[in-house]
């Protein structure tokens, strides 16, 4: 496919999808849905084409596409450089799956949806995908902002479109407000630059940023960073995320968690390394360290809160907070190391590679997990794990793929999650031995926290998978579940395949990372550093210490595992033929029922107690006794963990503001002489002030 015409094609696909789903809805909602998703699929494929074309094309290749002049005061254009192409690639990767998954899911999940709703969903999905793709391709502030808000708006529509109950509306509201606040900050950051440059296109902004004084530069960066952080769900700006993402239809949740957050990462990278980067010398000291710190906090808190969720999709959403944190650790490290004299360059490349690789990895496995949760949801209509269980026997494909995703997200070999975390660790270690003094300690601490995060994630997904899919069904919903329709399975298989491929042969993915690393760092590219010893080997050559660098080969390890599994399987069959029978689980001789199965709450309880200080758990136990307190009829236990940021900050602020405005409103007596008095007073004061002003 001709790459240059690709952008037009992609835009055409998404546009056609949006319009057709609006127009066809009058005929039939299902048709509209189908056509809309088909167009989205085509658009995603086109996106993949463009991205690969640029990424694997001639080095430094950039395709630019001027847009018609919509506003007299701004020249709009699109441009796909290495970075844009990479994120476009990530977006399209998941978009393909989502478009494939969508129709069947929506039909199965809400069969009674009216055509208006289906039209809205088809329309919004296309707009959402399109605007996400074009945010990454924007080459001027205006296009960026438009697509950015379009992205927010479309996802908002999708969130509130799923069920028309108050919960979704509230979630959507919180989401919109925080996103809007973030956009406001971005707006200011952009406008300060545009005022200096007098134009909106990035080229002019770069030029304007070249002669900024350090203070302004840093202010601008943190304005932009907090704007993007609000979108990326960085702690403490994350509260909207675990509410909004689960509320959306599952394939949209996959997109929001897997991809939309990454667009914010794109923005951070674009600002830090491209728009605001000084002409020469390293980035200002504070940037990288703060990003690193924030990332670490997000990673740990995200997974800790995820541990205590019983809502499957909410749990996954919290894990997005964690993974964004991990990505930010890499990004922050790259910022710290960039252009440091010595071998900082190579290390920076390692760090950035880790971050970018984790970006695509997270997109893949988080997408997979959300789709899995979606097919559970559309078959059982239950999101609470405590009401599920025993699904592995009823939905084997979904279960298997979900397990795959769980292993991947827990950063366990031989899957892709491990690779990017390994690279992050290597970057951390390398820089730790480089920065002596407290800086090094901070980095090492980050490493320890990262390790903790990995362990907790594993615990969390043992719970998520075990309680949802294993044991006995706890309710009739789970009892009568059946396997999801093939198109949904296919979508999950696609993402699962990506996870395996990126895990077993990550070396082959490195060339994809060359373009972005080159665009941002102008230093050694990813494959020059990471796969220096051949595509099958991940290594951190050119490491600072000069000593023999670490090298691992995922492929070899996978092969080793495979062969050992084969051997073990023989062993498993036993040394001699022996009888094999099934019997009920041992429950001390009592007749086992589903009530014997460990619940999610119980599973997470020890960790809840260990980290009590962070959770502030709330529990109430009500006992029904038969007459005497010694005979218990039943005990009812209810407990929950509160998100500190949410309760301590957001709710408080919200209460204060509404109370204040209520009070102010109550003050107004609709008395006309009061009105007149205000007019007179205004005039009088104005006159006096003008006199004093002279």
């Amino acid at each position, binding site marked *: 496919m001709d790459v240059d015409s690709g952008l037009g094609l992609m835009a055409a696909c998404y546009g056609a999808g949006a319009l057709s789903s609006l127009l066809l809805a009058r005929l039939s909602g299902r048709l509209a849905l189908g056509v809309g998703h088909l167009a989205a699929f085509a658009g995603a494929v086109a996106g993949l084409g463009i991205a690969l074309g640029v990424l694997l094309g001639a080095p430094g290749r950039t395709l630019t596409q001027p847009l018609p002049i919509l506003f007299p005061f701004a020249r709009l254009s699109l441009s796909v450089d290495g970075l844009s192409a990479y994120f476009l690639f990530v977006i399209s990767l998941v978009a393909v799956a989502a478009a494939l998954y969508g129709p069947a899911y929506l039909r199965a999940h809400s069969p009674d949806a009216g055509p208006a709703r289906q039209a809205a969903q088809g329309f919004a999905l296309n707009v959402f995908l399109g605007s996400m793709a074009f945010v990454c391709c924007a080459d001027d502030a205006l296009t960026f902002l438009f697509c950015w808000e379009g992205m927010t708006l479309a996802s908002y529509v999708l969130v509130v479109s799923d069920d028309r109950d108050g919960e979704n509306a509230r979630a959507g509201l919180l989401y919109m407000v925080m996103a809007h606040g973030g956009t406001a900050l971005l707006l200011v950051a952009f406008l300060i630059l545009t005022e200096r440059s007098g134009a909106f296109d990035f080229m002019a902004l770069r030029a304007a940023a070249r002669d900024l004084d350090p203070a302004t530069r840093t202010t601008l960066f943190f304005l932009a960073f907090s704007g993007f952080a609000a979108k990326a769900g960085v702690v403490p700006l994350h509260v909207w995320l675990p509410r909004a993402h689960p509320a959306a239809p599952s394939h949209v949740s996959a997109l929001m968690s897997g991809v939309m957050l990454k667009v914010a990462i794109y923005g951070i990278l674009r600002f830090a390394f491209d728009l605001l980067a000084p002409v020469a010398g390293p980035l200002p000291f504070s940037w990288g360290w703060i990003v690193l710190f924030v990332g670490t906090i997000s990673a740990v808190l995200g997974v800790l809160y995820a541990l205590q969720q019983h809502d499957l999709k909410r749990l996954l959403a919290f894990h997005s907070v964690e993974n964004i944190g991990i990505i930010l650790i890499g990004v922050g490290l790259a910022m710290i190391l960039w252009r440091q004299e010595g071998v900082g360059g190579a290390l920076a490349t390692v760090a950035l590679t880790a971050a970018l690789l984790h970006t695509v990895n997270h997109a893949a496995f988080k997408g997979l997990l959300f789709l899995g949760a979606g097919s559970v949801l559309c078959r059982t209509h239950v999101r609470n794990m405590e009401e599920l269980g*025993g699904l*592995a*026997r009823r939905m084997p494909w979904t279960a*298997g793929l979900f*397990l795959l995703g769980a292993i991947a997200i*827990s950063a*366990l*070999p031989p899957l892709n999650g*491990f690779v990017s975390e*390994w690279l992050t660790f290597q970057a951390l*270690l390398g820089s*730790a*031995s480089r920065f002596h*003094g407290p800086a*090094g300690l901070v980095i*090492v*601490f980050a*490493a*320890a926290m990262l*390790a*903790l995060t990995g*362990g*907790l994630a*594993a*615990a969390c997904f*043992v*719970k998520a*998978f*075990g309680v949802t*899919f*294993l044991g*006995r069904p706890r309710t009739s919903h789970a009892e009568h579940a059946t396997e999801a329709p093939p198109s949904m399975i296919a979508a999950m298989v696609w993402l699962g395949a990506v996870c395996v491929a990126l895990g077993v042969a990550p070396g082959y993915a490195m060339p994809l990372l060359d373009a972005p690393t080159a665009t941002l760092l102008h230093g050694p590219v990813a494959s020059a550093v990471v796969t220096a010893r051949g595509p099958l080997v991940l290594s951190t050559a050119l*490491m600072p*210490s000069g000593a023999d*660098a*670490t*090298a*691992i080969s995922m492929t*070899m*390890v996978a092969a080793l*595992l495979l062969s*050992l*599994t084969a051997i*073990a*399987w023989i*062993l*498993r069959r036993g*040394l001699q033929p*022996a009888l*094999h*029978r099934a*019997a*009920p*689980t041992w*429950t001390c001789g009592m007749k*086992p029922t589903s009530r014997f199965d*460990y619940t999610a709450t119980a*599973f997470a309880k020890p*960790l809840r107690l*260990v980290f009590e200080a962070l959770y502030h758990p709330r529990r109430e136990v009500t006992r029904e006794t038969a007459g005497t307190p010694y005979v218990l009829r039943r005990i009812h236990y209810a407990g929950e963990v509160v998100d500190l940021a949410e309760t301590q900050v957001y709710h408080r602020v919200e209460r204060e503001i509404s109370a204040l405005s209520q009070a102010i409103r109550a003050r107004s007596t609709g008395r006309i002489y009061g009105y007149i008095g205000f007019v007179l007073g205004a005039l009088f004061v104005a006159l006096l002030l003008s006199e004093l002003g002279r």
Partner: protein
Amino acid sequence: MTGERPLALVLLEMTLLVLAGPLVTGAIQKMKARLQCRQGAGVLQPYRDLTKLFRKGTVQADTASGLFRSIPVLVVAATVAAGAFVPVVRAGPPAFPLGDALMLLGLLALARFLTAVGALDAGGAFGGMGASREMTIAPLVEPVLMMVVFSTAIAAGTTELGALAAHRGTSWLLAWSAADFLGFAAMLLLLPAETGRIPVDNPDTHLELTMLHEGMLLEHSGPGLGCMVLASHTRQIVIVAVASALFFPVGPAGAGVVGVLVGAGAFAGKILALAIYLALVESSYAKLRLFRVPQYLGVGFVCALTALALRIL
């Protein structure tokens, strides 16, 4: 760089670990028995148990999914694979990139993950309880272990265990820096936790309320259980081997057959020493309450962090 350890050697070391695994357990049991003034079973008892298990038939929970049968296979495979990354008889990186300490820990974590999943598969309270507790302790142990690894890795500039051992060379206690001592102390604190022994876990008990790891094996039987048991033996020796590779000199790199034999002898000695340590700890301490374990590990964490700090500052 040219690797000192060709594929054959690596596989050899791996098999050696697998084979020697039960022996270590047996030795520890024997020493414990002695220390508790009992006769105790023979050192080879674990082998007998294993062969018996592999002959028996299997009883599987009727609620378990198809996954359940393959769990032991994957677990043992992952654990054994982890054994491939430890230098046993000869220091120095392998001739070809394979895996490093992080990969090793990752594979052990994978094994643990699968074990816990398997434990939940059968349903019933004990599996869940075991899994829950195991997955509570593990996330607390892993970071500390990693920091111990880092504390040596930062000096060597690599996380590949063979290279680490080579970097340490044959330097012995006298050549240790304060960081090494602290790191080693942390390692000693962690060993019982990682090998599932008192004071963190109690491998002998089958009293449901006290067991962690054993609880997860309850529903396994016959060859499946055999695999799980073998896996835990291997896991134990692998951890011990890591500890010895990190802190004690491994057979000199590039030495010939003699060197290998010397290395093997040295290895046996080191393993024995650490086994004695484990036996002593097990028979001189009581098992901790589950919620005291974090404090216990906290000590290890502090040691490791200090070790790192000393390396960096």
